[in-house]
């Protein structure tokens, strides 16, 4: 999953970026409104964490502009705490509103919820055959036994599972699993798919030659 973080306070941005990466997200960062808008409209993100008080362009303005072309889930993370502000933010098109100072775990949980909802997989636990994917704890079980997957492997499985029944192209996989700082290596995806098949069974991921990969329903 790829997330865009638009926050101008550098220490906060750094802490969030690290935490999100630890959670297996690919994280892009912007520290002013214009940059944030540009990135949000240029790439596909699974979620955007957006501050309101930004230099250059105000977060709500960015959101308004974004909503004209994108339906990316947006979580507003801001120090503006009044009821008026919250209502205004949500009405502008945000999907969630979290006030600073916030609890990190809460932020991560809300982000997960947003992504689940937007992928149409509201159940935090997904079952594919005898494989169970718990998105909250980021663990995978095969026939009841936990299987150790690397972060990348898990992300791959999660992404395919979220889009189960749909073909996910390699490009999409790259877009969603790597952030702007990653160097895209074409081999990476195949290697990970192969490793996942080794751990969870061949049938879990289907290859559509020329198109991409899929987890079937």
């Amino acid at each position, binding site marked *: 999953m790829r997330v865009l973080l638009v926050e101008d*306070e550098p220490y*906060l941005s750094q802490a969030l970026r690290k935490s999100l990466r630890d959670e297996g997200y690919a994280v892009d960062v912007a520290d002013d409104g214009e940059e944030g808008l540009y990135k949000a409209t240029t790439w596909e993100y699974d979620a955007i964490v957006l501050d309101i008080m930004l230099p250059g362009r105000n977060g709500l303005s960015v959101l308004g502009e974004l909503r004209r072309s994108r339906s990316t889930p947006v979580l507003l993370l801001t120090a503006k705490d009044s009821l008026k502000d919250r209502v205004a933010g949500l009405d502008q098109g945000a999907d969630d509103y979290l006030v600073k100072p916030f*609890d990190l775990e809460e932020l991560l949980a809300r982000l997960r919820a947003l992504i689940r909802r937007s992928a149409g997989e509201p159940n935090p636990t997904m079952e594919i055959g005898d494989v169970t994917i718990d998105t909250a704890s980021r663990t995978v079980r095969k026939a009841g036994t936990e299987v150790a997957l690397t972060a990348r492997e898990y992300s791959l499985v999660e992404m395919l599972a979220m889009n189960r029944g749909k073909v996910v192209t390699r490009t999409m996989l790259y877009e969603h699993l790597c952030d702007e700082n990653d160097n895209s290596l074409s081999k990476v995806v195949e290697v990970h798919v192969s490793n996942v098949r080794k751990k969870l069974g061949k049938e879990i991921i289907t290859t559509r030659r020329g198109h991409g990969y899929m987890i079937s329903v």
Partner: protein
Amino acid sequence: MFKSIRWTFLAWLALLLCLVVSGYGATLFYLLRRSKLQEIDAELEGAAQVLAERLRGRGPGRPPWMGGPRRLPRLPGDGSGGDERRRSFLDPFERGRDSRNSGSAGSSGEESSAPDESSRMRGRLPRRGGGWYRGAPRRPGFDRTFGELELPESLVRRYGEEGAGAPYFAIWRGDRLIRESNVPSAVPPPAALGTSEVSRVRQREGTLREAIVQGPRETLIVVGRSVHEELAYLNRLVGVLFGAGLGILVLALVGGWFLVKRAIRPLHQISATAESISAANLSRRIDIESTENELGRLAGVLNTTFDRLQEAFEQQARFTADASHELRTPVSVILAQTAMARRRERSVEEYREVIDACFVVGNRMKALVDGLLTLARTDAGDLRLEACEFDLAQLVEDCAGMLESLAAERGVALRLDLQPTTVTGDADRVVQVVSNLLTNAIRYNREGGHVRLTLEERGADAVLTVTDSGVGIPEEDLHRVFDRFYRGDPARSGKCGGAGLGLAISRAVVEAHGGTITCESVRREGSTFTVRLPRNSVESPPNLNSA
């Protein structure tokens, strides 16, 4: 309840009215009574004088010792038997009050108990309880006069001949009663009149009023009558006056009650509205119908006060909100950094980074808290400043030295044009001010720009100007520039500037020294901040302590 204005007012009104009405009534009564009694007395005295005159022979019926034809007064029922009558006179030299039937020689000798004219004419006087007073003079002539002596007809006619109010008279000589007529009870001998006294009046037995006049030949003539009717009338008058007074009092109080009620009705309105105005509901105001009278003015003043209170409250609320808002960002940083560090095992380097971040941000919070505290103290009028003498030029130079690196970083040149100026004030605080102005000038500047500092003496003040070639301040914001939490760019968080308290604190410090700080700016060209500090501020502000 009884402490209300209405009751107090009415109580005083009642008291006042009581005094006034009873004073008036008492005076009235007194005057009436006096006048009445004077009237009575005059009448009695007059009658007594008439009798005296008659005795002296000036009235009808000359005294026999003057000789001449005797003319008897015409008496009712006059008829025959006049001679006999003449003979029945009191002898002035004989004792009176003699119930013996003496001296009625020649009279019919009747002893009828019924009082009638004939016995009167004879000098026999009806005595209460029946019987007669005897008293006929022995000596003819003078005796006759005495016997013929009657009270003036007018008096008799007015008050009746007999009965309770009928007038009577008695004539004394020394302690001897010579003649009595119609007396209701024994007349005590009057005391002799003084040399200057023409007449005297006395009152006996409650209702008998008597005038005493000097008659001829050392006689004292007493004319009196029972004034019980008049006294009764006066008593009734007291009652009437009292009742009327009471009625007036009641009427006035009732009227007063309504008037006061109407007058202070607005007070209730004001009270009610003011009571409903509380910290939660400061926007209500008192309805003023008319602003001319005192209550209208009071309501107006109260409304203005409420306006100011509301303003102050709102300011406070804004300040608190702004302050806590400012603290949100640094706190979120610390929480996010430490939460992230705690989630899993980190490298020493990572931990070090987290600690560094917390440290920097913590210092920012400290600066914010210090700034807020200073401002709070200013608000409470509690800003304590130390006073010492120092060279302001030197202080500015030192400041500039400290900020040189920042200026260099931004590509901003600092130019100083300072005159040595000795100033008395709180050096630490003044450093804050200068540093704040200079930092702003550098930060809000452009690459390749400059900041010019000038200092000179102007009269009793030291004048410092800080001019920058920066982005300037929009005209509509100029008046807000010294407000708390005002920042040029609202999104600028604490990371590269203060919380927006710098100028507010600078103003507070400058004003505490008794000085002024002003700002001029042209957008996109730059701004100039001017600080005037009295050189000897020990004299002016109240919160400078001598070091």
